[in-house]
């Protein structure tokens, strides 16, 4: 062939508006998965304060003045962190629900309603997140 035209990636991605349910599910699942693994690293980093805390005296620990307790409680005292936590919950819930949907797909169950189950995951995620807001915001100073 003499020559041909490659429309390239830009055009491919420019097409997101035309994506279907399954594609969105894939993108969201990817996104949430990456968030979660990212969080896992951070989480362990934060929890690592327990290494020093373990060395502190029992009094300090009992007074909850050890580095572990203060760090965690300090973080929990921040409104921003609470918001991020809600986000994390949403991310986790979506990843779980869609993960379940994917597991069903893998087992070949309910393939005809794969789009519906994706929408259901979204709606449920929203609902659960909203419902948990009060719990997540208790005891935080604004």
């Amino acid at each position, binding site marked *: 062939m003499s020559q041909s035209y490659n429309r390239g990636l830009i055009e491919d991605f420019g097409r997101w508006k035309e994506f279907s349910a399954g*594609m969105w599910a894939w993108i969201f699942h990817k996104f949430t998965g990456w968030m979660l693994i990212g969080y896992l690293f951070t989480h362990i980093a934060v929890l690592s304060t327990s290494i020093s805390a373990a060395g502190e005296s029992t009094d300090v620990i009992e007074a909850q003045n050890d580095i572990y307790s203060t760090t965690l409680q300090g973080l929990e005292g921040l409104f921003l962190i609470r918001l991020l936590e809600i986000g994390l919950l949403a991310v986790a819930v979506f990843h779980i629900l869609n993960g379940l949907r994917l597991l069903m797909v893998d*087992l*070949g169950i309910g*393939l005809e309603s794969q789009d519906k189950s994706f929408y259901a995951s979204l709606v449920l995620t929203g609902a659960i997140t909203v419902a948990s807001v009060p719990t997540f915001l208790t005891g935080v100073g604004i």
Partner: protein
Amino acid sequence: MSTQQAEPESQEAPEDPAMKGAESPAAEEQKGGGMVDEHAEKAAELEGETVHIKVFRYDPEVEGKQEPRFDDFHVPFEKGMTVLDSVMYARDEYDSSLTFRHSCRQAVCGSDAFFVNGKQRLGCKTQISDLEQPVRIEPLPHQEVVKDLVVDMDHFYDQMHTVEPYFQDEDTPPVDDLEEQRQSQENREKIKMSSRCIWCGACMSSCNIAAGDNEYLGPAAINKAYKFAMDDREGEEIKEHRLRILEQEHGVWRCQTQFSCTEVCPKDIPLTEHIQELKREAVKKNLKFW
């Protein structure tokens, strides 16, 4: 006898002298053009309902088409008109250089999968009245464009060929015995859908994974393999061999169950389901060795 002339084509086509052709030299000139405003003018001449289509144009050899553009055409609407009918009309009446593959007009040859209003569809099987106007008609995404709506299908064919797409027999009786191999109705039913593929390439074009990984076998080829792997007439050994092909790096595991292949397949083949079933078969087979 004479009543036979009443072909549907002529029923609604308005009396447009330009469309009749040769008699008027002016009409000839108009035809040559192929420029956007001319088509618009032309549309004004047409009475009755018209359909507005925007068609992707590209030709490496023709100035003005080397940089892709969209051309507008207004074609007279007829009941039952398909997307393919509309581009054929535009080609025959306005611009003979408008290029696309097509042949059977009945969804069996698989030549005319286009990207129509953002979805892979068979031109001949898509009623234009079901679409929002202007109808945007582009070549299949993720394949190189040869010219206008024609894409390079070689890669698709290559992928189809890698799955050893032919029946492999272990011990078929000699032909002169006139004995066929037996196959149960259930088994034939199981492979029925998979055997319908017309190699149109719509599925492959719609798959993001195939776009990202050029070596991914793709839904059509995997489905082709499914047809053989699930056919009881081929023995267990060959089935294992087929699964080994499918299990490669760029085989079934690449599929991320995006379902777009299943959604666009004009033959309604449950592609994702078939791919998933093969994944499970492969896991089952592998578990044996643990």
